[in-house]
């Protein structure tokens, strides 16, 4: 099997020292299952100071989001050869505070995202199936993994952001009793009317949340 050699350009930055920003280039061989996260792990083997976030390695936790060749992606599920490029550039997300190298601080993301909003929903998979006797129905975790990709890709500033508004629309479905309160938040100055419909959020979302669709639904509801 061929093991192509790819050039990786990884963004490096030391906290509090903007002048330290630079790209570090390395050439590595990869195979068909090698992901960008596998590459970062290999690079850290040689340089333990390389900082990046990661946890689940399968697109469930949402920590390893980076800009890979300019597009917000999960490093763990992006296979290098699928990028179809000889040079792969890895940069941190935009809009969140840089911490060092590829790490950004998720605090600003979660400042907007109420921690009490629900994480579980009914499962729509195998709809014809009958659940075990003591379960009212099958459940599953919500699609959004709070990875920040949509926030980084969105061109609008001073905005609640696609993830929060999509979450808000899901919360309406999960808790109909909170409808009025949620719509009031959606309508605020930094709410749905700020959206410029660039659709970048839906384009980069790794888990098929389609935030732009949720924003559209909220706008429709508010104009009814």
């Amino acid at each position, binding site marked *: 099997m061929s093991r192509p050699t790819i050039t990786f350009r990884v963004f490096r930055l*030391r*906290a509090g020292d903007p002048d330290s920003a630079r790209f570090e280039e390395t050439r590595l061989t990869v195979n*068909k*299952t090698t992901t960008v996260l*596998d590459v970062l*792990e*290999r690079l*850290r*083997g040689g340089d*333990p*100071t390389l*900082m*990046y*976030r*990661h*946890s*689940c*390695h*399968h*697109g*469930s*936790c*949402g*920590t390893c989001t980076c800009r890979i060749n300019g597009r917000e992606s999960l490093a*763990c*599920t992006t*296979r290098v050869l699928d990028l179809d490029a000889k040079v792969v550039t890895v940069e941190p997300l935009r809009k969140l505070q840089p*911490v*060092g190298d590829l*790490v950004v601080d*998720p*605090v600003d993301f*979660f*400042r907007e995202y*109420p*921690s*009490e*909003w*629900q*994480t*579980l929903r009914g*499962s729509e*998979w*195998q709809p*014809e*199936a*009958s*659940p*075990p006797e003591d*379960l009212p129905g*099958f*459940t*599953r*975790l*919500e*699609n959004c*993994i*709070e990875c920040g990709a949509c926030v980084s890709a969105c061109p609008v500033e001073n905005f609640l952001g696609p993830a929060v508004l999509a979450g808000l629309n899901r919360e309406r479905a999960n808790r109909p009793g909170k409808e009025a309160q949620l719509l009031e938040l959606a309508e605020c100055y930094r709410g749905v009317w700020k959206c410029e419909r660039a659709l970048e959020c839906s384009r980069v979302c790794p*888990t*098929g949340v389609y935030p732009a669709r949720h924003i559209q639904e909220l706008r429709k509801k508010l104009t009814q």
Partner: protein
Amino acid sequence: MMLLMAMPRVIIIGGGGTGAALAYDLSLRGIEVTLLERGELTSGTTGRHHGQLHCGARYAVQDTGIGRECMQESAILRRIAPASIEFNYGLFVAITEEDEQYCDTFLPACAACGIPTRVLKPKRALAMEPNLNPKLRLAVQVPDGSMDAWRLALQFFASARYNGADIRSFCEVVGLNLSSGGAVGTQFRVTGVRILDYRSREECNLEADLVINAAGAWSKRIARLAGIDISVSPSPGTMVAVRSRLTNMVISRLHPAGDGDIIVPQRNLSIIGSTQRLAENPDSIETPEEDVEKLQRLAAEMVPAFKDAPYHTAWSAARPLVGEASGEGLRSLSRDFSLIDHGGPDRVERFLSILGGKATTLRAMAEITADQACQQLGIQASCRTAEYPLRPARSFYSAHAQRAPASGANAGSEERIV
């Protein structure tokens, strides 16, 4: 008037599930806790695990103790952290005659562990899970579930932080500070750690009254900083995810634990695991390509649609098994955990290592370790982690703004359950 005394300070090394539950447990007992993790939290093994909330049935035949503990702990986690768990039960499926015969061993073993089972005819099992192999002979329903490994751990971290614990990621412990002349019979006493903060790239010392090594597959390396050898085998396993949720329940093969015999659904994915091998260095674990094909084939024996579902990703996680083993002996290495007080034969006091264990039993591991820590520190406080719901995962990032009042009313949450 109550006399205010400085509480002892405990340093936990390792930000995996064990460290998370331990930081929370100690913080609930009023102890000042600092947790140090060299990378992102749960970036070692915890975050990468299969995502199964084990009711213990998988281990019931091999080890009644672990089976029983998983049953108790999974029920507690469902109570204190429901937001991170998809609780849909699990099915053990018999495909061959041999599998069917194994049922005679399996059912009494589950009963001995207190795990409720329900034997289902193929028709009923297929009504619950239409994608099962239609040739199945029977299925046994057990209270398994799926968890979000990152968010479950984060709920513990959030609750610990709420109680004042200092949780630091990207801080690697590069040295253990020892003073000679501990108590009679010991040679050294651990007085703190030396850390390298990757944010500032600076080193500094942190003092502690007790240091706990909870570094999982990396704990051997930490113990060596004090000149101590411990037996931990980093034992990686491969998992493969496909981009389709083929079942709602956890599907296990009704046979003795082996490779590729558990399919865990999570969100819109189905994950088959696992394999088991040995690694010298837990830092450089690659995923063997041959594992991927093998796992996909084994998954298809239980759920045929697995082989046609779109490939999502494959990855490996290094289990921290206690003991040393090689090759075929691996599956027999216990999934149990052990707590070592290095003040014993190693003659280094105020230093504990908590080794091994499973994601499902993280709370129990923390309880036993925290009991031992309190005993060494002369603190009378019992474990309360099973009593309160954990704080939401997202609140980890806003916990500074909503920390509990420092009055000592340091509950995990406002309302108490049980």
